[in-house]
């Protein structure tokens, strides 16, 4: 997992499987970011090829945490399979989904 800053946003780049095995690492990383005062997060899931309900739960929990601190969380989800899973759970209406990082950064 890679982290970098861009303006007010902290971008976390995630790769691999965001599932019951891989997602706990993301949760810990988000918790560290929030504890460090970074409440505006972009999770770049371009390199994620698989997500399960546990991974979705970590995404929802991450959004909840930053919102409690008046922050925000955006998702970059170009992979159709991953986007479909989000849509099956109506999470495309919960998260701001973007096709690429540039689009996520310029969204208002």
């Amino acid at each position, binding site marked *: 997992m890679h982290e970098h800053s861009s303006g007010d946003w902290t971008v976390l780049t995630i790769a691999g*499987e965001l*599932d*019951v*095995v891989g997602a706990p690492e993301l949760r810990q990383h988000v918790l560290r970011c929030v504890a460090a005062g970074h409440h505006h997060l972009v999770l770049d899931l371009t390199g994620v090829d*698989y997500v*399960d*309900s*546990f991974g*979705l*739960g*970590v995404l*929802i*929990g991450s*959004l*909840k945490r930053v*919102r409690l601190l008046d922050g925000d969380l955006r998702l970059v989800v170009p992979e159709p*399979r991953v986007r479909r*899973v989000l849509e*099956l*759970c*109506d*999470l495309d*209406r*919960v998260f701001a989904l973007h096709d690429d990082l540039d689009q996520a950064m310029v969204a208002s």
Partner: protein
Amino acid sequence: MTLSEGGSTPRRAPTTSRLSFEIPARTDFVSFARVVVAGAAELRADISPERVEDLKLAVSEAVTNAINAQGRIGRNDRIRLECWLGDDELTVIIHDHGDGFSTADIPDLPEPDHPDRLLHESGLGLHLMSMLADESEVSSGDDGTDVKLVVYSTRRRLST
């Protein structure tokens, strides 16, 4: 792992192959289970790659539920999976020895734009299973739970 053939007569009658295997009740074996089931599904040329991906996720959700159900009561039995490859569908049964659950216990999720939606970090697994499989069924009893998932062939999907 066992693979057997059945129902081979008479000619042109439906044939069914059965594959069964067990995994340790550990989350690091979930991906193994879904890869094996996907391999079984790919033996059926008439199941599209997209549906195989759907089945992989549905099976993963069922296996994760099974591991968690056993974990809640401290049981460490292996999780058993059976795949039945019919001419027009693939059926997967996931059996555990957990404390059981009912789909009626799953709370309704608030609308996506409701603030309380973010209180529901879990509980999406059963929802996903039912959305991804053509049929899904949960049977809980004293000896655990059977989750049955069925994915139809493209031909059967088009004819129903």
